[in-house]
């Protein structure tokens, strides 16, 4: 509990700035704590755990100043400005929503501040809107689409339908998935698409509209409460019977756990099967996390933990808090994550963190992932020539 209390003190900023033997390095952290607590609570626990470990290991201590962005880009920018201009943080990290991540990345470029984006999935943040100051941890939308499309291509299904939330994330997930699938399977045709508003899925009519097109397989990009509605109504209406389903993010405990014994079975999903990963790196993380919090980690925990570890590694390698030095240190840096070693690529500032792809099943009344394998992000990243084409020159 010691590091918990320490972290709590740090968040409140009570530790102060008085000159000690070694003045701590300040990290500014921003995330959608009030908007998305289901993801960001585990995320916060994750980075707090990592912070405790980093500071226990010695060296110049790190202090985190954490802020809520209310899920809005404008508020995230106010927070970023406060952290940089007033608190004088050495770097920024965090964010969940793509548009919030992009706004903070743009701010980082403008103010020449180092920014480590934790969660935003949009490709734009490292490619079309990429900038020298911004790095990103999580596998992008395209990478996850490629991992799923690879599995989808093995299915016999030829007639596909898609259900995706009507905003950038849903649109680009479907677009990339389609593009990759058609490369591997030119015989595939898309017979229906539904674009419900995020958070407002009217499940019945949408499901009937999809079923009417008689697809053999369904691509789902909805998550959270929409996913629950889709699964419940779809099961009752028999939408999934005799059909394959490929689904983004559904294997993440944040989304699979609440479904309980109503979790879908046999869906091909990306996710995080914390209960069945037997690598030493993950076992150590799992043990430390459960010991610290008395609960199991979620994917947010891994993202928070790894972001903080990466930030600390970058600070240590740079040996200074100068933005130029941090960028130089971060390019090509290797970090140990609970999923194994990852590298932040110099060419597009994207980490090679991957994701688990598997099938859903029900075990003891809970949704789980089975037959899963870890897909290394490095295998799904665009090569240098492609990046040069997509990313503005630094």
């Amino acid at each position, binding site marked *: 509990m010691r590091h918990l209390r320490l972290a709590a003190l740090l968040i409140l900023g009570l530790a102060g700035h008085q000159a000690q033997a070694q003045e701590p390095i300040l990290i500014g952290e921003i995330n959608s704590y009030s908007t998305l607590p289901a993801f960001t609570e585990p995320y916060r626990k994750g980075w707090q755990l990592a912070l405790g470990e980093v500071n226990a290991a010695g060296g110049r201590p790190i202090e985190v100043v954490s802020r809520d962005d209310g899920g809005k880009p*404008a508020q995230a920018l106010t927070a970023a400005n406060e952290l940089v201009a007033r608190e004088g943080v050495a770097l920024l990290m965090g964010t969940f929503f793509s548009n919030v991540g992009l*706004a903070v990345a*743009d701010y980082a470029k403008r103010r020449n501040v180092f920014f480590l984006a934790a969660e935003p999935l949009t490709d734009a943040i490292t490619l079309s809107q990429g900038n020298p100051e911004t790095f990103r941890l999580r596998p992008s939308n395209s990478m996850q689409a490629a991992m799923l499309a690879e599995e989808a291509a093995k299915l016999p299904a030829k007639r596909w339908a898609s259900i995706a939330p009507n905003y*950038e994330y849903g649109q680009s997930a479907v677009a990339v998935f389609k593009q990759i699938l058609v490369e591997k399977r030119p015989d595939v045709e898309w017979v229906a698409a539904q674009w419900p508003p995020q958070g407002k899925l009217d499940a*019945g009519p949408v499901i009937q509209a999809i079923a009417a097109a008689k697809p053999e397989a369904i691509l789902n990009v909805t998550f959270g409460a929409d996913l629950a509605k889709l699964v*419940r*109504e779809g099961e009752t209406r028999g939408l999934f019977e005799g059909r394959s389903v490929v689904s983004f993010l559904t294997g993440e405990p944040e989304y699979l756990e609440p479904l309980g014994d*109503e979790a879908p079975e046999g869906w091909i999903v990306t996710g995080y099967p914390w209960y069945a990963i037997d690598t030493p790196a993950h076992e150590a993380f799992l043990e430390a996390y459960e010991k610290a919090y008395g609960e199991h980690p979620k994917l947010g925990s891994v993202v928070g933990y790894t972001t903080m570890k990466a930030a600390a590694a970058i600070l240590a390698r740079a040996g200074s808090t100068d933005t130029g030095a941090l960028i130089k240190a971060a390019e090509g840096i290797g970090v140990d994550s609970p999923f194994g070693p990852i590298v932040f690529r110099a060419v597009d500032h994207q980490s090679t963190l991957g994701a688990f792809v598997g099938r859903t099943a029900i075990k003891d009344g809970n949704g789980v992932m089975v037959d899963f394998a870890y897909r290394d992000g490095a295998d799904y990243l665009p090569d240098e020539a492609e990046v040069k084409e997509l990313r503005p020159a630094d």
Partner: protein
Amino acid sequence: MDFYAAQFLTGLASAASLFLVASGLSLIFGVTRIVNFAHGAFYMAGAYLAYTLTERLSGPFGYWVGLVLAALLTAGIGALVEVLLLRRVYKAPELFQLLATFGVTLMAEDLVVLVWGPDDLIGGRAPGLEGGVLLFGQRIPAYDLFLIALGPAVLGALWLILHRTRFGVLVRAATEDREMVAALGVDQKWLFTGVFALGVFLAGLGGALQLPRDAVNHAMDLSVIVEAFVVVVIGGLGSVLGAFVAAVLVAELNAFGILILPGVSLVLAFLVMAAVLVVRPHGLFGREEPAPRAVGLPARLWRPLGRTAGTLALLAVAACALLPLVAGPYALAVAAEIALFALFALSLQFLMSVGGLVSFGHAAFFGLGAYGAAFAVQAGLPMPAALPAGALLAALGAVAAGWFAVRLSGVYLAMLTLAFAQILWSTAFQWVALTGGDNGILGLWPSGLAGTPAGFYLLTLALLAAGLVALRRLAFAPYGYALRAARDAPARAAAVGIDVGRIRWMAFVAAGAAAGLAGALFAFLKGSVFPDTLAIPLSIDALVMVLLGGVGTVSGALIGAVAYKSAAVWLMRETDLSKLVLGALIVVLVVAFPRGIAGTLADLFARRRRA
């Protein structure tokens, strides 16, 4: 054919859920004239309570009892809110109660997370209705059939209550003429409490009945409140039958609309509402409201600032201009944000206080201003040209919106502006090639002097002062007197030769341009534009700032904006429970300053001078 029949049935089930919430809202508005923003929060509370109760009470019987108990408990909470909070502000100017219910909503969102935790909750399935029934070759959930039957049953029950009980007679009489009912000796207090509790019961029931098909989560309130309001307005305020017909209309158009345009759900309800209001200005079943009696008038006649007050105002501006000497870059950026929001709030105040025209979609003009500035920058224009470009685009938007809006009045007008804003929002959201969709337009940072925090702050302050002076001059010019005449007595104003529609239209354009200027400043302050500059929360922010400042004043929004915005920024910084604290703060302010902060202070001041 079978498929279309099944799709129709499915649409009816969606309509039933919508109707339950909307009917309660309509009842409450009809009698108490409260725009109950907290209705979504009560819906959410019903769902959460139903989750807890059905988990505790065992057996199929327990499940159904749990659902009804949850609705009853929610009604109890509603009655409590009415007695403790709303009763204190019935005498306040129109719409002020909205502010109170908004505070309650903010609190509810954080409270449910504190009580029930952050994760989505999945309740049990309804016992006896778990499976599907084969109809028209499609498997329809039995629960949907139950809901389809429930809608008309609730409608019938409400009809019986309204037409066959003494309570119902009083409710209908109060909907018709509140003052007369009071004059006849009916205890309005308990009538209002009863109606409010009944309306909240329906909201709670609507939420509880989602348990078997939805995931209970802390964003449920927002997903339902706006749509419910749209349904109420389409049906006609205060009409329960209208709410039913409108719910069926919206749900069916959605069920069939998505077959042709799969993305249409985003904006469909608003398109329907706009179309209905253009054809029928009081909704499908609404009746023309009697001309408002002179109750909303300002307590005192407005006067231009005298020499003393004018000097004081100048001194205040001068003092604000000295801020860069003492404040750091962060404080200056926050001050600039507050100043531009003050300009935004003042523009709405001009429309509301001077023109008597309430807008629920004022963000439309703010967002148009922001996008206008962004497009100008993309076209290569510098900031000094981009700012007026933003204001111009917003003014053009106001010309279009105003042309439709001035044909309506009251809440119908307000909801039409909301529809306008939502249609623009969904356009910005969907038209990715032009606006970048929800990933927005980036890299709009100002250069040169305006790029420094102090420079930008002084520019914003100067434009705020200019906007304030311009809007006040307009209010006290002959045009302003004509606008106020049209507000206070439209029939008499028309009789003396004032073209009421035309001068109101001009008020829209003036307010739109000022809001657009604020939006353009916002784009440069944040260096980016996102569709949420057009979205409902921003419209509500503007409304809150005006109401908090005092709708009966000329420039009280200035104080409302400073109070609300600085509290919001500060709380975001200090706590993850900013909504809870901000909501509580609003509730306290509502009770302490029933005419708004500036309005109440001005009253006190005037009374002291008289004494």
